C-alpha cells in the first residue's frame, strides 16, 4: 500500500460527523486493518442506497449500485488524497454509478424486448420518483401521510436533501448538498430553509400540528 504520510488522524469522538468517521475508517484501512471499513459500511449504506434511489435507480438495481460504489472505494482507496473528502467521493461515485447502471440496464432491456413503460412519449423512467406512486397505498399511518403530503409540496431538491440528511447521524450537509446538486454556498441555510418549508407545510395539517407542538 502507498504511504500516506499525512494520514495521522484522531479517532472520531462524541459529536463527530459521518465524514469524520469515513476519514478515520479509510485511514485505518490504509494502514493495513482490513476490518476498518466494516462499521462505516454498515452505517453509511442506507445513505448510499437512498442516494442511488433518489437518482432514479430501480429498487432491484440499487443493491448493485451500492455494492459497486463500495468496491470502487476499495480499488481507489490509495488515490483519495484527502481522507476528509471520502464521504463526498462516495456520494458522487454513487450518483455516477447509478447513471451508468440505469443506462446499461435500459440498453439491455431495449436489446431484448420492448417494455410497456418504454413509451417514448412518456417521461424517461430515470426521472420518475417512483416512491410517489404507491405512497397513498403504503402509508396507513395518518402522521406518515401528512408528512408525505407536506414533503410532496417541497421542491424536489429540498425533498431529496431532507431524505438523505435524515439517513445518518450528523451527516455532512456539504457533501450531501454537493452530491444532490444544491448550491454549495449556503448549505446550512439550505438545510434550514428546506426544514422550515417542511414545517410550514406540516402546519397545514392536523397531524403536523400535533407532532410539532
Amino acid at each position: 500500500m502507498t504511504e500516506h504520510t499525512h494520514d495521522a488522524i484522531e479517532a472520531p469522538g462524541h459529536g463527530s460527523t459521518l465524514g469524520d468517521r469515513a476519514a478515520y475508517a479509510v485511514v485505518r484501512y490504509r494502514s493495513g486493518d482490513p476490518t476498518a471499513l466494516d462499521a462505516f459500511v454498515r452505517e453509511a449504506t442506507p445513505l448510499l442506497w437512498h442516494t442511488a434511489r433518489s437518482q432514479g435507480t430501480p429498487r432491484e438495481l440499487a443493491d448493485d449500485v451500492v455494492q459497486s460504489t463500495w468496491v470502487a472505494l476499495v480499488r481507489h482507496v490509495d488515490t483519495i488524497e484527502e481522507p476528509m473528502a471520502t464521504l463526498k467521493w462516495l456520494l458522487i461515485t454513487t450518483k455516477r454509478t447509478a447513471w451508468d447502471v440505469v443506462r446499461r440496464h435500459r440498453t439491455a432491456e431495449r436489446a431484448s424486448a420492448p417494455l410497456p413503460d418504454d413509451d417514448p412519449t412518456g417521461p424517461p423512467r430515470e426521472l420518475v420518483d417512483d416512491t410517489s406512486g404507491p405512497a397513498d397505498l403504503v402509508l396507513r399511518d395518518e402522521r406518515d401521510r401528512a408528512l408525505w403530503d407536506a414533503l410532496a409540496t417541497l421542491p424536489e431538491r429540498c425533498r431529496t436533501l431532507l431524505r438523505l440528511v435524515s439517513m445518518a447521524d450528523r451527516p455532512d450537509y456539504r457533501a450531501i448538498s454537493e452530491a444532490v446538486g444544491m448550491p454549495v454556498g449556503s448549505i446550512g441555510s439550505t438545510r434550514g430553509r428546506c426544514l422550515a418549508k417542511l414545517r410550514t407545510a406540516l402546519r397545514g395539517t392536523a397531524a403536523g400540528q400535533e407532532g410539532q407542538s
Partner: protein
Amino acid sequence: MIDDELDAGAPMDACDVATLAAVRELYAVLDPVPRGVAERSAFAMTIAALETEMMNLVGSGPLVGARSDAPVEARTITFTSERLTVMITIGPAGDGVRVDGWVAPGGGFAVELHRPDGVVRTSSDEDGRFVLEEVPHGAASIVVPAHAGEPAVSTPVVEL
C-alpha cells in the same frame, strides 16, 4: 473544513431532529433498504481485495415460464465483463439452491463460488456450462480465476 465543522455542528433544535427522524421513518416504510445490502457490500469489498475485475449486472428476473404463484421461483441473472458473459439460473434444491451456470465464450474455465464462509470450485464444460448443486442460501459471488494471462473476474454479490 472549518466551514464543514461549523455547519455540521450548527445547532439543530429538537424540532429539527424530530422532523428528520420522522422523515427517516417515513422512507423506511416507503422505500426500505433491503436486508443484507451492507453485508453483501462488505463481502464484495473482500472479493475486490482479491484483485478481480467486477462484472456488470445486466439483467435479472424470474425464469421465463416460472409460475408466478410458485413459492420459490427460479431466477436468472446475467453478468458481463469486457470478455466474458456469465449467466446463472438459481432454483430451489434441498435446503439450499442449485445454480446452473453458463460462461460465454465457452471453452472450459475454472469456476468458483465464493461465500463468506468459503469457496466451492468447479469448472465449465466445452460449451461453457457448469452446475453447483445444493449451495446454501446466502450471499455469494461467482469468480472466474485468472487464466491464460486474462485477469480474474467476479460477479457482484447476490443473495442465493
